[in-house]
């Protein structure tokens, strides 16, 4: 069975993938989908209950919560995708170089990674945001900085593992160029593992970005962002607790979708794991 067939059989994977695609589409077409301007305040209707024109009600400034949620996709989800893309590109590049070249290059890259990995990622993120100051761009930079070393190390070890395989040795003996081997033989082998890790980590990055925004270190008002919306809801919790629900569930749903999808991709890629699961069942 090919990878896609396997994935299609997995109901959870299909549902997760559908949710993610749907959310992304809504995010991209936010101006069309959103019923109101996410920044348009109307103090007369503040804390309005759910109604036909405001399906999730309004917040403390009378802004439409649904519209803010929809525009929040653009900030939270899109930013985490950008973060992951940048992390993967940096990690793959350095990891493949280190694992393939070995020697001094490898040594230098790995020692830098060692130092970076000796920080808990939370502290690393706080350190960078602390130095650069609060702000959206800085949060993205901090997330990339705290994660690339992980990817570099993992991809390096994968590359080393694959370099020892006979088919790669054979193509070396056959006189294939280094770039050819990397592109045609190494990369396809490594890409599956990267996909699993990247999918799982996207959820992690979404949590991180919204957490930092919740603390006030990330997205600054009035940009709609889910963590930020929860922070605003916190201040009026005693009177209007329902404001906490929508953004929280939004984060929960999208993070779960990414986590489930990551697990499913892992299962689809790793037939051994599948058999084990069958035995355990």
């Amino acid at each position, binding site marked *: 069975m090919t990878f896609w067939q396997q994935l299609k059989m997995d109901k959870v994977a299909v549902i997760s993938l559908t949710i993610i695609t749907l959310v992304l589409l809504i995010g991209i077409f936010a101006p069309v989908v959103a019923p109101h301007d996410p920044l348009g305040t109307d103090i007369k209707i503040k804390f309005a209950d759910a109604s036909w024109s405001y399906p999730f009600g309004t917040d403390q400034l009378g802004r439409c919560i649904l519209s803010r949620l929809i525009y929040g996709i653009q900030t939270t989800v899109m930013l985490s995708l950008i973060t992951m893309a940048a992390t993967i590109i940096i990690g793959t590049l350095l990891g493949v170089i280190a694992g393939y070249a070995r020697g001094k290059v490898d040594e230098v890259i790995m*020692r*830098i990674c*060692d*130092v*970076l990995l*000796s*920080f*808990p990622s*939370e*502290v690393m993120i*706080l*350190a*960078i*945001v*602390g*130095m*650069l*100051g*609060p702000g959206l761009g800085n949060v993205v930079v901090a997330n990339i900085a705290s994660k690339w070393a992980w990817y570099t190390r993992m991809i390096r070890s994968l590359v080393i593992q694959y370099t020892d395989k006979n088919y790669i040795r054979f193509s070396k003996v056959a006189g294939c160029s280094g770039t050819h081997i990397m592109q045609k033989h190494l990369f396809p082998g490594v890409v599956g593992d990267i996909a699993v890790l990247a999918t799982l980590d996207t*959820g992690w990055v979404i*949590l991180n970005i*919204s*957490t930092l925004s*919740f*603390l*006030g*270190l990330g997205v600054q008002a009035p940009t709609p962002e889910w*963590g930020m919306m*929860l922070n605003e*809801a*916190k201040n009026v*919790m*005693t009177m209007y*607790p329902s404001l*906490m629900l929508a953004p*929280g569930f939004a*984060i*929960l749903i999208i*993070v*779960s979708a990414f*986590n489930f999808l990551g697990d499913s991709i892992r299962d689809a890629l790793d037939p051994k794991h599948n058999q084990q699961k069958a035995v*355990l069942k």
Partner: protein
Amino acid sequence: MFVRNICKHPFLEIVDKVKEDYMRDYIIYRLIGMTPILLGISFLAFVLITLSPSDPAEVALRVNEITPTPEAIALTREQLGLDKPFFTRYIDWLVASLHGDFGNSYVNNKPVFHEIITAIPATLYLAAVALLFTVIVSVTAGVLCAIYEGSIGDKVTRGLVFLGTAMPSFWVGLLLIWLFSVKLDLFPTSGMQGFSSVILPAVTLALTYISTYTRLIRNNMIENKQENYVLYAKVRGLKESTINKHIFKNSVQSSLTALGMSIPKLIAGTVIVENIFAWPGIGRLCVAAIFNRDFPIIQAYVLMMAVLFVVCNFLVDIFSALLDPRIRQGE
């Protein structure tokens, strides 16, 4: 001692000797390996300030509401030692840090060391209670789930575990405050007064770890169930409870080692919880420092956390090498 020496077979003594030598070498090897990492960490903590787009001297003036005229900036630069060359400053700072002197806070001019030392007990208290919750709940839940694998309880727990990993902890914190403080009025919403105030923050902090370790212990136990020694024990006709005890012993060790590794992460994770519950610990201190651009405190926080992380990893590695001969030989 005397009796033991007489009774001991000479060969066993050699084994013990080799084991001791091995451990000593391993510890020395790890200690030497730690030094460049610690140096790298300190350099990184220091260099981040230099990368910062704002001038520390100007920040120091602004937070004290002094107009940053060029003369005042020059004077502050001199006071803070910012006019010296980069490496001199790094060495000065490193030597001072080793003596526990992290400079003074830009905001209130108190020594950073003092600020941090007064905030640490609250953080450690919170982390310790959270760790206790984690161990108690995840071991109980993990073991029960593994024993009653496939039961309704197992399924429900697995669902909860899943929620625990996907829910943002700050949301959990808010919901807990709303339910237990606002609605039921059982615990205070924030601050640190008495034991009842630590429960909500500790639960919020522990939740992620409880989910992770419940799953880990459950899966470890289920994996161990397939091992040959369990089959053998069953064939011997041992009681179910005895077999479970063996499985438990074999599977809990690796989970507890992993838990040891996550202690520094737990302490670093207090940042969010402390800010939600207004808990007077170092996490809150650090976030306040970020808003005030109070660089010495951020620097000291980062350095301390990283060192804590490295030392904890070191201790866990030594500990697991002592417990598990396979790791010793693997090195």
